């Protein structure tokens, strides 16, 4: 999981006035919303990296054909308890094979990390007050899960024989380690 440092992050939104822009210069690492992308699409050079900011009520299907052109798709959590972007990420990866960065933005809290990692996000822009240490710890509580996920859609029952037993043993080992 990549933790986005906004000071070093090359991605930036289009500056200037609100509303649909008259013309968009193909600046590298521009992060466009859907209407901006539609305006810029025809003239955008294939070798200039561009990102898409998708609202959580916009359908992934509607941009499916353009996905190969994006280096990044930024999904939104306007409220952290609004789980629509988990489904969007899952569809981007599993259905549309999107291979670029899928970034979580908005109200991104450390306790969302296990869900984000499992639904296809590979980058998070944590809310400013969140602790990176806590976020990394949040990723480490479970050795395995029952259902498959975007990293490996095979559920526990479809994993090679002995996987469940091995995972249970590993956790034992971790517990022993912690108590020493």
């Amino acid at each position, binding site marked *: 999981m990549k933790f986005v440092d906004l000071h070093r992050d090359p991605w930036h939104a289009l500056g200037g006035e609100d509303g649909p822009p008259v013309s968009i210069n193909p600046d590298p690492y521009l992060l466009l919303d859907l209407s901006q992308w539609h305006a810029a699409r025809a003239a955008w050079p294939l070798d200039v990296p561009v990102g898409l900011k998708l609202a959580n009520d916009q359908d992934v299907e509607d941009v499916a054909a353009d996905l190969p052109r994006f280096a990044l798709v930024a999904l939104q959590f306007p409220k*952290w*308890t*609004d*789980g*629509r972007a*988990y*489904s969007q990420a*899952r569809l981007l*990866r*599993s*259905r549309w*094979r999107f291979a670029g960065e899928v970034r979580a933005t908005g109200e991104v*809290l450390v*306790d969302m990390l*296990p*869900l984000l990692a*499992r*639904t296809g996000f590979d980058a998070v822009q944590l809310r400013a007050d969140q*602790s990176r240490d*806590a976020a990394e*710890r*949040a990723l480490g*509580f*479970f*050795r*395995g*899960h*029952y*259902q*498959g*996920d975007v990293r*490996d*859609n*095979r*559920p*526990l*029952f*479809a994993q090679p024989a002995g996987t*469940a*037993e091995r*995972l*249970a*043993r590993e*956790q*034992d080992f971790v517990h022993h380690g912690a108590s020493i």
Partner: protein
Amino acid sequence: MYQYTAFDRQFVHQRAAQFRDQLERHLAGRLPDDEFRALRLQNGWYVQRHAPMLRIAVPYGELAARQLRALGRIAREYDRGYGHFTTRQNLQFNWIPLNRGADVMDALAAVDMHGIQTSGNCIRNITSDALAGIAPDEVVDPRPYCELLRQWSTLHPEFAFLPRKFKIAVTGAREDRAAIGWHDIGLHLKKNEAGEIGFKVLVGGGMGRTPVIGTVVREFLPWQQILVFIEAIVRVYNRYGRRDNMYKARIKILVKAEGQKFVDAVAAEFAHILNDDVDGAAHLIPQAEFERVNASFALPEGVGEAGAPASAPTETAPAFRRWLERNVHAHRLPGYRAVTLSLKRAGQPPGDVSADQMDAAAELAERYSHGELRVTHDQNLLLPWVRESDLAALWKAARAATFATPNIGLLTDMIACPGGDFCGLANARSIPVAAEITERYTDLDELWDIGDIDLHISGCINSCGHHHSGHIGILGVDKDGKEWYQVSLGGSDGSTLSGASVPGKVIGPSFAADEVADAVEAVIGTYKAQRAANERFIDTVRRIGLEPFKGPANAARRSTAHAA
């Protein structure tokens, strides 16, 4: 019953460790109330009127005696010595201080228990028929399917923050004892003409402010596909369910609004998963996995498919005969019976059990039922493996332990939520209403004369007491800071006795708290006066309609007389 594997066991311990981390951050001021809320809810922790309430999952109602003893220990050590069984087959504690919460989760994990997804806007604990695996009218034992669904839905990463809560109920018998029409997803296991097993799938049932009965979206879905099909349903709901208004956020509203478009969207999503997604068929359940899970549900050691020698009890005490008739149920194995331990008795709220009673019930289960119990949808306990020859001894022991009130299915076997005495959501109290009615009907002859009847009491529109599905439903409402009660008649949970699932109809303006028991008595009186020979309450209501009940009920009004 299901036997935890080493993986399952580690999983609940890991969950307890995760909760401890979250709780510690919260108590240290690093995780504010607002953000901790959704996390604690998904572990069963509500903040209630007096203290946090902890809801513990009893998956599809199956409980081991050793687990019940552990719950008794928790009740003594952390709570004020009692717990409450719910209509969703869970157990709630009411007085555990939050700062001891992590220790309680560890204690639960030690006996393969947890509070995972017993609350929050996620897929909740799956409920089923309390007679699963033992009912004579069963076509397919639903428990292995429930367990497969439990595992699949547990910490599903995509579906932890749905628009609203999501409840699944499964039955495999001819008679629906799990009220599947009232659930977000209702599953009815059946066999087709070729003898293959599949599910009838209902979607979009629910109670609350807008009672709706589920719509059939598939008449027969091969069982192997159930996880994928539910994934399709829940994904469509997660994407398109309303989030702007909490009261319109359940899937029932989406299903109602979209109709056939919803059904088509689910079918399309289902096909996409299988045809287009990376490893999309991975959640089709292989026979070997079914067999692995199903092995847990083999008959308990010492119980054979041949059953036990028939042994009709010789005890002739009239009280025993009554108990036999009401609390003892037929079993698919000859020589065996299922026995309900009634948690409906004067002096205790419906579904409540003290720590001592938990121990007593655990002991009865160990002595007479191979250490297994069930929590029923009607808030009782049930012993699934009782030998006919033990019935008389069990009756005596159950009587000594306060569990032998022969009232199962009768008026005092009512469903009631904890209501305003405990619940932070409630508009009105349920327990005093339940108590008043219980006290009025202590005469067994009278109760028996009234016969089969479902009385359901909810303290608010969230409908935890299932008032919509009661033959008599009582709903607590708040007006001007006072408690009022709406009375409805003719609801059904979908059982054979009650008929097709349907919400009851309100009989008039709300009653004041001190009128509601009189109103119920007037309704019962009207039934007794109007019934045909051997006609049950619900049938009389259906035959004569609501009108004849209104006058007598209104006559019970005092403070609300002007309103009626």
